[in-house]
């Protein structure tokens, strides 16, 4: 299949059974990882430091070579398809380091020359929205960390990529800049074709703009699904004490992640509300009280539960 035909049909990003171990390391950076990002949507990657978020993004960009598994970006293998595929990818690393001696204007010209689809008017607009216009004459080395990220982001967006791979694009930015970045990303989605994959430890950013969420822990996917389903599925429940015996029997494989017997009632963390309701014995008193949690609570609950 040629790059062109593959690119018209494939999802934005597909990973199947991908494993990666760095040279000289004894642990797997990623282990048997699978996920899919459809075109036109935002995938948020959540994970603690060292969970494998950066590895995942670099694999998708072709910077790293997978040890096993299959990776497709727009239907093409980033490792083998050569530089043409990267015309359709916008990548921003966690702490972008371009060339300290070169001015932003020069760097922009250098990057623009690599992309047939470079949109200069859009680039100007991005510079304005991200407060970069006054820095155009500055050398890259002079910029603050946040400004470096914003400039790298403008470069990555201005060639109108079909897939944006962003490693922590909002960390180190002030709240106003963060909001502007999120809004710029959503604007890039307007065509319904562009997909964004971004990692973040700021769960509120993921909760805000991600359509799909993938939680990674120690190289493995804990879950990957659409955000609204996730937020409805994982809940906190207050149950009558009588449910204790049943919960005991349910064990670890059931829909309950964790529960604690209180003096008068049981507080439980439920991983799958639908399954839980289906299993909940008729004999036990109903109704029980259910509260939704935010993404941060869910993230902490799931990663902590795995540690025990």
């Amino acid at each position: 299949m040629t790059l062109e035909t593959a690119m018209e049909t494939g999802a934005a990003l597909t990973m199947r059974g991908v494993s990666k171990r760095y040279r000289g390391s004894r642990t797997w950076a990623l282990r048997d990882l699978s996920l899919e990002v459809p075109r036109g949507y935002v995938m948020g990657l959540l994970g603690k430091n060292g969970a494998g978020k950066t590895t995942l993004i670099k694999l998708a960009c072709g910077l790293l070579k997978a040890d096993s598994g299959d990776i497709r970006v727009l239907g093409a293998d980033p490792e083998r398809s050569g530089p043409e595929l990267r015309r359709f990818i916008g990548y921003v690393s966690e702490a972008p380091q371009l060339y300290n001696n070169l001015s932003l204007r020069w760097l922009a010209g250098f990057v623009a020359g690599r992309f047939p689809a470079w949109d200069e008017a859009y680039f100007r607009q991005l510079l304005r929205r991200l407060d970069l216009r006054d820095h155009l004459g500055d050398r890259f080395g002079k910029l603050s960390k946040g400004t470096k990220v914003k400039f790298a982001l403008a470069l990555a967006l201005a060639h109108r990529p079909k897939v944006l791979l962003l490693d922590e694009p909002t960390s180190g930015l002030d709240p106003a800049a963060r909001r502007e970045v999120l809004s710029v990303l959503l604007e890039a989605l307007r065509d319904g074709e562009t997909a964004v994959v971004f990692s973040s430890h700021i769960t509120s950013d993921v909760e805000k703009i991600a359509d799909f969420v993938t939680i990674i822990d120690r190289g493995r996917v804990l879950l990957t699904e659409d955000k609204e389903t996730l937020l409805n599925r994982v809940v906190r429940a207050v149950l009558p004490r009588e449910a204790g015996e049943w919960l005991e029997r349910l064990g670890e494989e059931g829909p309950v992640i964790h529960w604690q017997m209180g003096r008068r009632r049981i507080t439980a963390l439920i991983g799958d509300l639908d399954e839980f309701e289906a299993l909940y014995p008729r004999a036990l008193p109903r109704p029980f009280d259910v509260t939704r949690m935010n993404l941060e609570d869910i993230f902490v609950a799931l990663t902590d539960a795995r540690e025990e």
Partner: protein
Amino acid sequence: MTMFLPLSSRDPRPLYQQISDQVREQILSGELQPGERLPSIRELAEQLTTSVITVRRAYADLEAEGYNYTRAGQGTFVSHRPQEAIRRQVMEDFAGTLRDVVRRGLARGLDGDDIREILERILEQGGMDGDA
């Protein structure tokens, strides 16, 4: 078109419900007229700086309740609905909300009389905040 739908992370309701509640409110109050075109899902997501899937869910819920309809390639529009249907819907929604509250009260040990008493008191005050 731009719709003003402020979203709050403090609001206990999920974001998609905050959106659908506000759009529903605007339709029921006549702020949005039957036949009027709503912003597209991606437009609204961009305006609200929220995810596409959240707006999609809100629109889907509204559509399931009959508040709007989608014409392929043209967009989403406010439905034409008789006054009676709207009133029934309002009552149904209200009953739903009340059911949740009542359930919560029962779970905390209140009985029917307690709840009736509280409801009376609230109605007497015309729905305003009490003497506290």
